[in-house]
């Protein structure tokens, strides 16, 4: 799957394998950060990963979702992640 991320200064694409039969946007971001690019910034500093804190909002193909709750089907070919509305801190992190 080709994942394109709106970073602070450019669009950057990553090739991400199908991690599981069902995964979330957060799983995809974790994979990129842990394996492909240690400089990627996305909301992760006080995160519940159970849609309880509501803080990991990001746009998937232009639509705001919680990264930890939004499913990425395994047949996805391309995914575009951009920052949600608000003051962008860095990459996908928005002050909320």
């Amino acid at each position, binding site marked *: 799957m080709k994942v394109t991320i709106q970073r602070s200064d450019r669009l950057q694409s990553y090739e991400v394998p199908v*991690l*599981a*039969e*069902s*995964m*979330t946007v957060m*799983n995809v971001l974790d994979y990129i*950060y*842990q394996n492909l690019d*240690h*400089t*990627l*910034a*996305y909301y*992760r*500093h*006080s*995160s*519940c*990963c*159970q*849609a*309880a*804190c*509501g*803080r990991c909002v990001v746009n998937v193909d232009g639509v705001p979702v*919680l990264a*930890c*709750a939004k*499913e990425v089907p395994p047949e996805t070919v391309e995914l575009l992640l951009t920052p949600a509305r608000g003051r962008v*801190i*860095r*990459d996908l*992190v928005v*002050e909320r």
Partner: protein
Amino acid sequence: MIQREVVETDVLIVGGSGAAITAAVSARSEGARVAMAVKGKAANSGNMIMVGGGLSIDGESAKQLLHKEDANLAYTKRSLFEKLVTSSFWLGDQEMQRQFLEEGPLGIRDVMRWADEAGNSPFQFKPQACRWLTSGGAFKRALKHGLRTDADGVEVFEDTVITDLLTSGGAVCGAIGYRVYTGELIEFHAASVILATGGYQPFSLKCTNSDMTGDGIAMAMRAGAEVKDMEFLLFIPILQEPTRFRGSLLPFLMTMANVFPLAFVPTDLDGQELAYPEDARYHPAPEDMKVSKLLMSYFYGKGMYQKWDKHGNRFYFDFSKYSDQEILDGFAAFAARYGKWHGKNMYHHIDLLDLARAVIANKKRLMVGMGNEYSMGGIKVDTAFAATVPGLYAAGEVTVGLFGAFRSGDGLVEMVANGRVAGKSAAHYAAAHERRMPEDAEQRARELLQPLERTEGESPIGLRCELERICDEGFNFYRDGSRMQTAYDALLRIKERAEHLYAPGGRCYNLELLNAVSLRNLLLCCEVGLFSALSRKESRGCHLREDYPMVDNENFCFSYTAKLVDGALVYGKSFPKAAAFPLEHRNFANVADCIADTILRREQA
């Protein structure tokens, strides 16, 4: 000098969840100036927002303080006290346990008032069990309201990670950290500091908030404070798959017959049943359900451990005795119970009917694993919640002493009970002591920034993932000496590599910097936990050993303590006192028998 913002206050509270907020309310009511620094958002961070069950107090207090006329008076303070002592496997501090039973209901009375005033914060009272059912969402709304109305004037610094305590002449006099978004350093000068940062969680399968990196425990140690009971970590069944729901505690809720109508068969991944004996003495009555967490760890763990190399921390809840419709109906009935808090058919983001369909599609099996819910170990405190270093206080899960080797009481009640006392004590200390200038701020600032200044080195997240793998393998809910030794040796190697962490990309929201901080803290917590676990050549509470199954009261009825002296770990022992209830001198063949005989008081057939 490294540039940093300086904030002066009387009492600094580190953390922004239940223990922190109740401490803030109490310190403010004593007239102290209070600042609160929290990694996430105040009242929307920590494990409090993950809560899935509820809380209980004694019947008399429910009736007198909370006006629950129908509260079950059979739950007396005495009976709860005895349960706390035995469930702690005698390591609990009996003075703290008595204090908890007095302070807890007062703290819960405040929470209920805040919940009423805030509205849309449902707490449902079950008189027979003398228990309120609730959710993390309800708790956060109540606590947010409490912070706003009853702790007026508290200066709150959100999205601010405290990385170290600051000291002067051996006393704690502040803390240093940074703002996550900007990377700017911030230094607090305070007469006293309360740590309310929660527990530690070093495994890859999690149901806890990502805040749980043992920050408070580790920074207290670096400031010279003593910790104990670090080998005791509590586990519950949580979801492994579907991956999109991984970490949810739903499977634990499914183990309660009064909540979930279907009875699953636990099996390993080869379909072999994980035997849980029929014998009634191992089956707790509803009022003792807390201990079922430990019994499941023991019985499932025994079966799983034989194939640990093959399957690891994975097993099934098998529903194949039910038809598809029965499964759908069962999950629908389960969902109806949670609608009030999570919306129709939902539990947080999980559509329970969707989950039921996933179970059906997966040969009627749900894949689960044992996930760490709570850490019993932490900072040693007295009944004023003072740590062993002057000026330092602690409250909530970050402390140790109340629950010993197994938490049978409610973490939510602990957090508010502790917060109340710690806030007051820290305010009194601040009133009696001048604020001092920290001696070590510059050095701590330099240490914090080191990973940003290197041009190459180890990736913090890389090492953190390795640490998680090591703990999954050798420090999990079921243990043996050889696996623990392997884990301990591997941990020491990671510790060496962690001297050279590298966090590229500047200060602004740098996840590698955050993980550098977390890794250092987790490593220290795990080192102490693993060393204590290796030394404890018996099983006790949540420390379940395959090679030493016996609960050996003759030789091990004590806590392992640890502290840093000149940078080196020094271990010791601390023996419980029988202040009001006798200690147990008999040994037991294993943890399950000990539970049956002493907590459940079931005679052997």
